[in-house]
């Protein structure tokens, strides 16, 4: 997909002014934060599990080639095929090739952020295929021609009013006066519309939360069951996934699964955890006749071995964005690419380039709440800081900011001059602060005073007063 991250500032301003989005964002606290906190509190070994998962994924990343090749061999052993894709274009080509070889016209699709990343839908649609998203959130944003605003809740930016409007507009064969006020009515209607698609599709595409090297299996976790219908009913199942998802064993997968749902939705386990190993075998009741795995790199291998490698530990639980006060203010679309929030700020510059994404690692107060909740212990602020340093070194930020910091650093290294300057400024502003002790507006502080008053300094600086205090104490013979 085409990133729009360079427009982060404008888009974040629009997001803050959007009342629907702001209302929708209020659901994050009860819907994600409180549920996660409760689930974590009920698992005494949660912190130990985080350490284990971090170490596990570090081990995998250090031997990624080995595990990916083992995975490929096992997929082939079980009768499936692996397609390696270096770029988004190669990945789309692989999927389209499989669809066209099968003469497919209708494709159902489970939620996949990798598919979003590579722009799969538009590529398939351009080739004349009909693609139907079957995850409720993805289905809604497909109707609205939007991109996901959250990696596990793609339609998080909407309330039921907008969803009902989208259904009214799209489902023209249903009575126009039907009631759609209740969430239940919306899910029932989506089920009704999707059921025909599940049965009619020739190809089902899903993502994967995990790949298991020892068995050649792919794993999806869902809460709607749509993924199972997507991958079991059509004759062909294509898994579109990325190279960072592999773990060595089923046991390792379970370590990560114990963290994933708790961190994401506060569930102990998601409603459905589905392990797929190859196509339908002789004697199997159901399952696809063909099983394909498209393994997408799309820039990940260039992150591997570098200073931001830790981002590849991410299991896409969304906890960082669910706890990020910046995400809570602007939502996901402002970030301008498929992965928003703190993990986006750490990952996206490596994926889409720092020129495009430079705002994202800067738009953080470094509050550290993301790192606090990340189940994989990704040091998100540290990686954002790395990107800030790259921005500075490569002179990608505005010259005014660079000169400002330069001037400040020059002054900060000259204590006498610094104290004289700040002493004068503090006395002046202290006087100007008047009786109310604050400024509603001040030249060069417009960004601050647009939203809040600026408290006035008390007057003389501490260090100036302390010099006088020391003299007074010396005269009084005090310690």
């Amino acid at each position, binding site marked *: 997909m085409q990133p729009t991250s360079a427009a982060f500032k404008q888009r974040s301003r629009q997001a803050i002014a959007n009342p629907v989005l702001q209302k929708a964002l209020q659901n994050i606290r009860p819907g994600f934060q409180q549920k996660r906190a409760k689930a974590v509190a009920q698992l005494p070994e949660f912190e130990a599990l985080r350490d284990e998962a971090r170490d596990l994924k570090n081990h995998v990343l250090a031997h990624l080639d080995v595990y990916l090749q083992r995975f490929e061999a096992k997929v082939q052993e079980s009768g499936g095929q692996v397609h390696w894709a270096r770029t988004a274009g190669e990945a789309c080509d692989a999927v389209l090739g499989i669809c066209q070889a099968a003469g497919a016209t209708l494709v159902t699709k489970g939620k996949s952020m990798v598919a979003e990343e590579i722009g799969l839908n538009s590529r398939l649609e351009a080739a004349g295929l009909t693609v139907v998203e079957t995850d409720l959130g993805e289905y809604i944003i497909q109707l609205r021609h939007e991109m996901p605003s959250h990696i596990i809740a793609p339609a998080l930016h909407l309330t039921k009013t907008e969803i009902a409007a989208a259904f009214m507009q799209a489902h023209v064969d249903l009575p126009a006066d039907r009631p759609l006020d209740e969430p239940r009515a919306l899910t029932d209607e989506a089920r009704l519309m999707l059921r025909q698609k599940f049965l009619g599709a020739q190809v089902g595409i899903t993502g994967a939360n995990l790949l298991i090297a020892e068995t050649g299996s792919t794993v999806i976790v869902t809460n709607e069951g749509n993924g199972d219908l997507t991958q079991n009913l059509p004759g062909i199942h294509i898994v579109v996934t990325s190279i960072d998802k592999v773990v060595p064993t089923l046991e390792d997968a379970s370590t990560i699964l114990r963290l994933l749902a708790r961190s994401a939705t506060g569930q102990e386990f998601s409603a459905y955890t589905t392990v797929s190993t190859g196509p339908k075998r002789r004697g199997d009741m159901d399952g696809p006749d063909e099983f394909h795995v498209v393994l997408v790199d799309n820039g990940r291998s260039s992150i591997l071995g570098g200073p931001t490698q830790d981002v590849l530990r991410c299991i896409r639980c969304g906890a960082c964005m669910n706890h990020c006060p*910046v995400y809570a203010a602007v939502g996901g679309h402002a970030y301008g690419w498929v992965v928003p929030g703190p993990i986006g700020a750490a990952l996206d510059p490596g994926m889409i380039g720092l020129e495009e994404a430079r705002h994202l690692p800067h*738009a953080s107060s470094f*509050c550290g709440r993301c790192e606090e909740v990340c189940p994989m212990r990704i040091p998100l602020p540290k990686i954002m800081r790395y990107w800030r*340093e790259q921005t500075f070194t490569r002179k990608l930020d505005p010259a005014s900011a660079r000169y400002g910091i330069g001037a400040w650093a020059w002054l900060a290294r000259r204590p006498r001059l610094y104290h004289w300057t700040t002493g004068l400024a503090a006395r002046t502003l202290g006087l100007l602060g008047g009786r109310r002790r604050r400024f509603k507006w001040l030249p060069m502080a417009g960004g601050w005073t*647009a939203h809040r*008053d600026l408290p006035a300094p*008390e007057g003389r600086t501490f260090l100036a007063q302390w010099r006088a205090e020391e003299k007074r104490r010396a005269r009084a013979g005090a310690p």
Partner: protein
Amino acid sequence: MVDTPPQHSPEAPRRVALFVTCVVDFFRPTVGFAAVRLLERAGCKVEVPPTQVCCGQPAYNSGDRAAAIAVAKDVVAAFDGYDHVVVPSGSCGAMIRVHYPKLLGDDPDWGPRAHRVASRTHELVSFLTDVCGVDSVADLGTAGTVTYHDGCSGLREMGIKQQPRKLLASIPGLELKDMLDAEVCCGFGGTFCVKYPDISGEMVRKKAETIAQTGAAMVLAGDVSCLLNIAGKLSREGHKVEARHVAEVLAGMTDVPPIGAAKGE
């Protein structure tokens, strides 16, 4: 490389260097005097190294690592040799304690000194409780309901949560009422509030709202930078809540007007 802080003997008072921070020095000297008062009451001998300026966060958080390193060296040079370095800010304290070793640790000359200063650096309130063993403060007549904002760096990098609450609880007339999301950032974030003023403004709007919802007469925190932000938003929104550094209350210095407001406003 971790340095063991000197053992305290009753005969020799702890020799404490106060790093007052550039924000306190410029905006709120009262906090510096409150810190001196609290440290002296806890039996410390307080010195204020006169060449101190800033911890270097503006450069560090802007990606100018070279400037941050230069400033960090100046701080290390000024504060090396004391028993402890005490900072009335979780953020600037964490910069020295947590981040200086990352900036200077690999330098053969500066690394050992940076580690020494870092391991002896403490945020003020946690120093009083955890190092000096202070568990109550003198009742100096401050009364009413207060709420406490947990500054991010103090909370997450320095482990400061119960320490200020414990000392506040020792003041008989004071009632602490927690705000919703006390651990959520106020939106200051150093240069962040200047570079992304709209997002910062939205974050502090929520913070001011949750503070006002408590009905407390006073909001306290361990960082003047957060408090400038919070006080500015409270007054802009017309909320009559006083904003003060927690040290002002603990030292009984609430006769000074609150941050960004006239006395008794």
